[in-house]
């Protein structure tokens, strides 16, 4: 232990000697987190590629998508480039309240995080009237599962994503007698259920978002009564409303603008549209490329999109 500390002290010492001159960006690597879904990983490599084009050093570190905000706050990770409002909003704001993390702007991608059904549910007319939510009243049995006691089941993400939002919505819409909410453990579980349902042509209602790889196969979001400010129970409303068009934010450690001014300037300008994100994900999920290769290809093919960020 002693040796190790001495050693690391030496390492710290050595590392800090060289970094006196601060002409432009520090040579210290920018740490970009990778999570376990394709678009995020490809975008990590895309943004990494953009930073590298500025002469910066980049390092990727796998991280849990919830725990990462604490890491950014402390400075172990420099940025996060996909902060989804409804899934990570809570973690992001919790970390921000403690200090150390800054909001680095919003992508223009219009995101929606909402309950929905695979396109074939609509096409095969399994529940006539969908995607309007009122149609749900007439066909709970289409969405029943082994453990739902005859009711239709809403497959929601883990409780860490939006707490009791969906159960309260069910109650507010008067669907409680016909539907129950089941919290899945993670995205994997949702994808597995979707894949299995698709094989059988079974009906399924699940939480999903766009842009996502499911866009390619077709996924229809249910049209709930439109979101208005304060309509949610948590905000004092009755809860009988759908999700708002969500934002997709970027976050950074508070030191990032000072240590890497050029990179930060580019990062704050970075703005991907739903199309961009969809393309990145498709290179991996549809074309079967590796994440790095997909990023390289995307950067090569879409200089028009990202060159403006670095100018």
């Amino acid at each position, binding site marked *: *232990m002693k040796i*190790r*500390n001495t*050693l*690391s002290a030496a*390492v*710290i010492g*050595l*590392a*800090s000697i*060289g*970094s006196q*001159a*601060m002409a432009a960006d*520090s*040579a*210290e690597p920018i740490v970009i*987190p990778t999570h*376990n*879904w394709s678009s995020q*990983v490809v975008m990590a490599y895309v943004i990494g590629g953009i930073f590298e084009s500025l002469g910066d050093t980049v390092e*990727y*570190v*796998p*991280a*849990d998508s*919830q*725990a*990462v905000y*604490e*890491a950014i706050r*402390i400075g*172990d*990770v420099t940025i996060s480039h996909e902060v989804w409002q409804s899934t990570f909003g*809570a*973690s992001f704001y*919790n970390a921000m309240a403690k200090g150390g993390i800054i909001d680095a702007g919003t992508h223009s991608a219009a995101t929606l995080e909402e309950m929905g059904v695979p396109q074939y549910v609509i096409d095969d007319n399994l529940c006539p009237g969908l995607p309007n939510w009122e149609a749900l009243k007439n066909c709970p049995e289409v969405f029943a*599962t*082994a*453990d739902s*006691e005859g009711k239709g089941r809403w*497959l929601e993400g*883990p*409780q*860490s994503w939006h707490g009791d939002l969906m159960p309260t919505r069910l109650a507010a819409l008067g669907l409680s007698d016909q539907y129950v909410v*089941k*919290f*899945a*453990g993670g995205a*994997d*579980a949702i*994808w*597995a259920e979707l*894949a*299995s349902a698709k*094989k*059988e042509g079974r009906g399924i209602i699940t939480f999903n978002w766009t842009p996502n790889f499911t866009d390619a196969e077709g996924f229809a979001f249910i049209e709930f009564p439109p979101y208005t400010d304060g309509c949610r129970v948590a905000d004092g409303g009755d809860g009988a409303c759908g999700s708002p068009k969500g934002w997709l934010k970027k976050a950074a450690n508070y030191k990032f603008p*000072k*240590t890497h001014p050029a990179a930060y300037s580019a990062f704050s300008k970075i703005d991907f549209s739903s199309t961009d994100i969809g393309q990145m994900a498709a290179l991996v*999920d549809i074309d079967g490329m590796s994440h790095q290769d997909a990023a390289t290809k995307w950067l090569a093919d879409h200089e028009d999109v990202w060159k403006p960020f670095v100018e």
Partner: protein
Amino acid sequence: MDTSFFTKHRKLSQFGILLIAFFALVILVKPNEANVLWRFPSLLASLPGIINDFAENLMFNWFPIQVYDPHIEEYEEVALLRELTRGFSRGVLFMIEFIREILIGGVKTIVAFTSWEFVRENPWAAWPAVPWTVVAGGAAILGYALNGRNLALLAGAATVYISVFGQWHPAMETLSFVLVAAPISVLLGLLFGILSYKSHAVEAILAPLLNIAQTMPHFSYLVPVTVFFGLGDHAGAIATIIFATPPMIRLTLLGLKKVPVEVVEAGLMNGSNDRQILFKVLVPTARRDILIGVNQVIMQCLAMAVIASFIGAKGLGFNLLLALNQLRIGQALELGICIVLIAVVLDKLSLAFANKQTDYFADLSFVERHKYMLLFAGFFVGCIALALLGRLIFQDGINYLYLVPHNKGITTELFWQSGVDWMVDNWYAGLQGFNRGLIVNVLQPMKNAYLAMPVSATFLLVMGIGYIIGGIRSALIVGGLLLFIALTEWWDRALITMYMASFSVIISVTIGLIVGSVCAQYTFASKAALLVCDTLQTFPSFIYLIPVIMLFGVTDTSVLIAVIIYATIPAVRYTIEGIRNVPASLKEAGMMSGATAFQRWVKIDIPLAFPHIMLGVNQTVIFALFMVIIGAMIGTDDLGQYILKALSDKQGIGNGLMLGLCVAFIGLAVDHLINTWASQRKNALGLS
């Protein structure tokens, strides 16, 4: 008649009375949150917040020191402890990266001795990766040097598999992290094992800590580890060390305690000093148990490969999560096999290293003495040449003789994928009836029954069982452990965890007893079954979660199937070991007295193997609890889901640790009851 029944079956009658009282309470106490007999008030509800504040204070406010940050040219206040833990982290990270860069190249080691500027300004300053053929050949030569041809073949084949299947890069990342975490765990385990052997005080302090560390789900300390040590390979390694060291400590202590007094006396009479007694007599003599400890450390390290990637460990684990998220089960399976292969090869190499014999009288020439080093050197040069040649052959494409890039190797993915598709196509419909029946007729009633238990009835039952088994002391221990849980806000969650764990333990133990007993009759079957157990123990359970969800949906059935697959491992293993260790003379005696195979099993095998089997049951409980928590990844509403949620909570540290303790305490309570009972039976059978 009545009295004689009571005196003869005193414990049985006590148990009967206990059950009657239990049901009376269940019927009499009405659900009402205000009723203390129904649910205890959550007096400990503020404890997570306190723990959280304490940890954050320690980490961010306590003893601030001024540290100059050259990047922003400012002095910053940093808490002393954080500087220290980060220093430690950097040390661990340095070691991981040093090994990693030997294998796959990089600049971090050079940076450690110069600076990032230096590396940026001098593009030549990067360590090149060695060709994969060098590592494969090196592994084979090492295997040959340690244990001859078979190990050479195994080590060589495993490395070739990893490379050819295009998992070289992540596999070497995982390997470098294991090569740091495992030795540190072994050394720490030895150190604390020896300290507990030498001092009863240390043993007494460590014992409960070890119990908790081994029963606490690792998800629950992921957040504290990231806060204290940061995010990255080092954090993964540290979480792994926390997880892998306790069994090493335990087995070291166990081994040392088993060293016969006379062997120590012989060492003393040979004039050994304290150090020599320890390292030349005690530790080597305890080596059998210590080597089991090393084996466990390696298994645990690779079992953590996936979880460690939650907090920054690069390598196979992270790629596996990524593949699963794309539902690429075939790829995940190949990654899982790589993890198992690394575990098996490391285990065999370490075992062979420990068993290596020296020939003292062989009068060897320089070449003979260093033949393996020379062979490796020759091989090294050859492989470099081959890699250069490869550069000519694959001029523009990928130089397969140097490095097969990630996911560019051959793959059997399509085969597995279509296997899973076939399974879903053909089995789904058939399994729905079973799934529905199980959920409606068994699982939901069972879950509801657990939730309908008044807290007073639960305590009566559990403490009563404790009293019947181990007297007032056991009753108090078990009661105390449960009281902690009952006073948190999560008692209902804990009941659900208990329901899932108890259901799967019942099934797992039944399967384990039957499969284990059958396999134990044949040497070959026993070996095969133990091999399967080893494989399943390191094979990442995440992989089979996905097909299970496809077949059974996000339901308790899926969770329980995953739990049963995992928890049956110790049940089978300990049953086989227990029965095979029943002395042959007793089995023969049974045969001579004309017992049928079944009678022999019931009257001889099972009773005599009983204490060992009970240890297996104990492990089954621990494994089941562990997997119920991982089952949160499928979707549960028990403690596990809350632990997962703690990853993003404001009070993540406190909640995570408290929830972890709740799970640990359930495990410890069962552990205490089973151990007390087993040791009594052991005494009664004269086996101790």
